[in-house]
């Protein structure tokens, strides 16, 4: 009997140690990743007059881009991309100067030499006001060198229809366990990166698997996550990849609970009925940053843009337009409306975001610091993900 008590105690102690390691891994200190040597801009010259940006919808809008053009003479050409993969593909054409990369795209871009390191000295607006949780993250800071200027972040929340789900779900179990009262009315995200959501759940409920970072899974841990996803498949009403599909799924009553973004909840235009929560296990999330192409022919305009959009008011405008937490905390003090926005999106609540694992490209090198095993890469995740839906 005594043994049985001891082992979990040992396991949790070991887990605590590992958790300590993992937060190091997150900050990018203890991890060296082999990246191509690309020169960084040393000083700024005359603006080139043109700037081509690949961005998420809502990141580059006339409301603030026009003012930028007036100030600097750089005409902004925007190309909206729908997925991280599309962004990577577009950046590799070499025709764009800047990209608003999420964490699952940035590592790929850095490792392939598609983006250049960033000289933060040339971005005066990148300063103390940038929230702590967005500085020096693994997906934009490699080997101590910065590759991205933070724009904003958000969590993948658990959204529910409060007409049906009358009690606030405190755990993700309502979307994972087959005895869920909402079986058959659940929605899940339709992409390989969703494996990380299963890993977050397992990290909390099955500590014996030893997962300390949902993006660093060895084969056994990946298999466990896939088993959980296959179990979920039997209770899912539908998967969503397209935001419109997710919103109509909730509005049309096909699903009553499932993974969502704060901005999608806003788009239902009934935030009373559709509530969101960050469950006790924590969640996955995303954090976006400007990255500059290594083949950019408008380096000066690109730096001016990164500086311009890091200013409190412009950064806040982008964050409000897209529906995310701004990177620049100073925005939250500019007006009552801004403060309310920051409150809603937990902009300065690091405790909230401590529980959020930002999307990161899974690579063979375990980013939780383990060196005795090889982790599974994104291609393996994709192949595994496809087996979930059979």
């Amino acid at each position, binding site marked *: 009997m005594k043994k049985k008590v001891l082992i979990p105690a040992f396991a949790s102690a070991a887990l605590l140690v590992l958790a300590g390691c993992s937060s190091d891994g997150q900050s990018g200190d203890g991890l060296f990743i082999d990246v191509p040597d690309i020169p960084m801009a040393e000083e700024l010259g005359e603006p080139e007059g043109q700037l081509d940006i690949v961005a998420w919808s809502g990141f580059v809008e006339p409301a603030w881009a026009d003012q930028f053009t007036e100030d600097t003479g750089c005409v902004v050409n925007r190309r909206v991309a729908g*997925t991280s*993969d*599309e962004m*990577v*593909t577009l950046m*590799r054409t070499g025709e764009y100067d800047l990209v608003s990369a999420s964490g699952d795209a940035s*590592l*790929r871009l850095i*490792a*392939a030499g598609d983006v250049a390191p960033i000289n933060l000295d040339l971005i005066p607006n990148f300063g103390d006001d940038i929230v702590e949780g967005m500085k020096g993250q693994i997906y934009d800071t490699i080997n101590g060198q910065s590759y991205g200027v933070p724009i904003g972040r958000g969590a993948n929340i658990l959204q529910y229809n409060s007409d049906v789900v009358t009690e606030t779900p405190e755990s993700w179990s309502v979307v994972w366990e087959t005895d869920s009262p909402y079986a058959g009315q659940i929605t899940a995200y*339709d992409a*390989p990166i969703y494996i990380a959501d299963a890993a977050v759940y397992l990290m909390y409920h099955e500590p014996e698997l030893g997962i300390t970072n949902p993006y660093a899974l060895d084969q056994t841990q990946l298999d466990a996550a896939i088993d959980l996803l296959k179990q979920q*498949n039997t209770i*899912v*009403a*539908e*998967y969503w*990849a*397209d935001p*419109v*599909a997710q919103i*109509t*799924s909730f509005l*049309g*009553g*096909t699903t009553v609970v499932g993974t969502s973004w704060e901005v999608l909840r806003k788009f239902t235009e009934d935030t009373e009925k559709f509530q969101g929560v960050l469950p006790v296990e924590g969640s996955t999330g995303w954090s976006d940053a400007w990255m500059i192409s290594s083949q950019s022919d408008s380096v000066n305009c690109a730096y001016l843009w990164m500086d311009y959009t890091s200013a409190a008011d412009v950064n806040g405008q982008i964050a409000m337009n897209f529906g995310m937490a701004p990177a620049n905390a100073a925005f939250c003090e500019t007006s009552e409306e801004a403060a309310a926005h920051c409150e809603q999106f937990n902009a300065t609540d690091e405790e909230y975001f401590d529980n959020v694992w930002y999307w990161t*490209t899974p*690579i*063979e090198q375990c980013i939780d610091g383990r060196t005795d095993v090889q982790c599974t*890469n*994104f*291609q393996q995740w*994709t*192949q595994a*993900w*496809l*087996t*979930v*839906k*059979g």
Partner: protein
Amino acid sequence: MTSTASAPTRSEPQAVPLHRPVSTALHRRPRLRLGALLALPLTWLVGLYIFSLALLLITAFWLVDPFTSLVRPGFTLDNFALLFSNPAYVSTSLRTLGIALAVTALSAVFAIPLGIFMAKIASPWMRAVLAVAITLPLWAGYLVKIVAMRITFTEEGFFNSVAGLIGGRGPGFGIPIVILTLTYLWFPYMALPVYTAIRQIPVNLFDASADLGAQGWTTIRTVVMPLLTPALIAGSVFTFSLSLGDYLAARFVGGPNSQMIGSIIASNINLNPPVAAAFSVVPIAFVVIYLLVTRRTGALERM
């Protein structure tokens, strides 16, 4: 006088070709004529279509960097091995084949009675209305139609509210709705050739059949159907191959378990292009087999 006056006028047309060097040259050189005629379609077919298809198939043998997902030229059969080693790929291929066949069958079942009605029974006015009704959906955007089906069959959607009146309810998103949606999308490609074929059947064949004592159903089975086969096969080539390549219907109305070949290709296209290329051989193989089978029936010659 008249004849002399008209002589120069008649000789004038002979002089005209001198002012048309291009037509003259083309007239004298039949090969050049043929070349000029085919240059544009051939450039399109070979340059854009076959060349890009060949490039795609070559990529299937290439390697991919696991970290950056950059494609490197090389030679490996691993991508093809994956088609068989990953159980999801086999089951998805078979599921897609089944969906495509079901869509084709359903389209034919709808198209034949509609075609007979339009061609032989409906008044000219009714016929025009039906022809417009069939072709009209082709003018709407493809995605718009899929989303329309999505809204119709959602839990609190149109279908359930109507079916609810008599106590019924829809099946919910899944393979049946995918089949229905694809049938809705590709039905015109089946309906139009079938309708045209039925129109071409001389009406006296129906009279002769009736005179010999055949009932309506016997006439359809022994007279109409054999004459319809080429049109049905022509239509089925469209409905079958278009269904094989689709993935958006599965994404929007597919529910949890209707992944299709296109879904897998789309998932791999950015991260792992060689696997996507290798898997795209599967629908190509299905279509080639289908065409070979239909060719044996001799239907393609009469298309």
